[in-house]
C-alpha cells in the first residue's frame, strides 16, 4: 500500500514538471537582434578655399599661416601610419607650400591622430603623410574628431609680384 502511494505521488510530482502544456512555460520570449555596421569615412573641411600672402618677395620669406579645420569620423581604421595624406596638383616656381597637423580634438575614446614629426612638410604632387593614428582603447578602429592643419608658403627664390593658384588635396586613409 505504501509503495503504491509512493509511486502515485512520484508520478504526480513528475507530471508537474514535464506534463504541463508547452504554453504554460511561455512567461517570456527571447529575441535576437542583428545589425551590420558599414565601413565608412566622413571627412569634411571647414573651408572650400584659402589664401596665403607673402608680404616680402625675398628668398626665405614666409607667408602668413592659414589654419584649416577638418572633421573626420571613420569606423574601420586599421592603418596606424600616414592616415592623413596631403598633396598639391602643381608645383609653383620658386614657392614651396608647407603644412603641419597642429592639433586633433577627439570626440571618441578609441583612437586619436598625432602629427607626423614636429615640423612642416613641404608638399609635392604626390601624397605625403602628415598624421598617424594612436590607439587609446580597444582595437582603436574608430577615429572621431576635429583636426587642424596649418599651411604657409615659403619663397625659395626672389619672387616677382603676382598671383599663383594651386589645389591642395587632403585624404584620410583608413586601411
Amino acid at each position, binding site marked *: 500500500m505504501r509503495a503504491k502511494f509512493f509511486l502515485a505521488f512520484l508520478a504526480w510530482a513528475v507530471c508537474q514538471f514535464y506534463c504541463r502544456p508547452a504554453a504554460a512555460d511561455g512567461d517570456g*520570449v*527571447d*529575441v535576437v537582434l542583428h545589425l551590420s555596421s558599414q565601413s565608412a569615412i566622413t571627412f569634411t573641411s571647414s573651408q572650400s578655399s584659402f589664401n596665403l600672402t607673402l608680404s616680402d618677395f625675398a628668398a626665405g620669406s614666409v607667408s602668413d599661416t592659414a589654419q584649416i579645420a577638418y572633421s573626420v569620423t571613420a569606423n574601420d581604421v586599421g592603418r596606424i601610419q600616414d592616415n592623413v595624406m596631403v598633396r598639391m596638383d602643381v608645383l609653383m616656381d620658386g614657392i614651396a607650400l608647407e603644412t603641419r597637423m597642429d592639433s586633433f580634438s577627439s570626440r571618441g575614446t578609441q583612437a586619436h591622430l598625432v602629427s607626423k614629426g614636429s615640423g612642416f612638410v613641404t608638399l609635392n604632387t604626390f601624397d605625403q603623410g602628415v598624421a598617424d593614428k594612436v590607439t587609446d582603447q580597444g582595437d582603436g578602429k574608430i577615429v572621431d574628431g576635429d583636426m587642424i592643419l596649418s599651411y604657409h608658403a615659403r619663397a625659395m627664390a626672389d619672387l616677382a609680384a603676382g598671383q599663383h593658384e594651386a589645389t591642395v588635396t587632403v585624404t584620410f586613409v583608413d586601411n
Partner: protein
Amino acid sequence: MLKRILLFLMTVVMTLPLKLFADADTKTLPLTFYIQPVTAVRAEGAAGSASVELGRVLPGVDQQAEALKVTIRTNSEQRYKIFHRYLSSITSAGGGQMPEGGLRFMVSGGSAGGQSAVQSWTEVPEGRAEIFNSGDSGGADSFTLNYLVSGKKPLEAGDYFGQVRLEIEQN
C-alpha cells in the same frame, strides 16, 4: 463408471450460478479536468522568427529597424505587464560594442486596449524595463516594438548580435 462421471459433470454445470454469464456490473469514476491559467508571449519579426534585423548602419545616419510584432495569448483575466531586458548586449565578433545610448525603442498601444509604457523613442536601458500594460481585465492583445539605431555615435564596422527577453509579469 462413465455414466456416473457424466451425471456428476451435468449436475455441476447446472448448479453454477447463472450470474457469471449474464447481468452487468457498473463502476462510476469521478474525473476532473484542470485547465491551467496560461499567459504566453510571442514575438515575430518580418522574417517570421523571433529576431529583428536592425539593418545596415552608417555613422551619422539613424537607422530604424523592422518592427517586431508581439502577441500575448491568455486564458485568464489577470492583468499583466511586459518587460524588456538584455540577455546579452549587442557586440561584434571583433569585440566592438554598441555605444551607450546607441539603441532606442518605442512601443505602440495594444490592439485590444493595452497601453504602451514607452510611447516615444527612448534609450534602451541595460536593465529590466516595463514596456507594456494590459487592459484592466487582462486578455489577449498585441503590440509593435520598434528599434532605432542612433548614428550619432560611430559604431565600429562589422556584424553585431545581441539578445533580449520579453517577459510577462502578472499582477
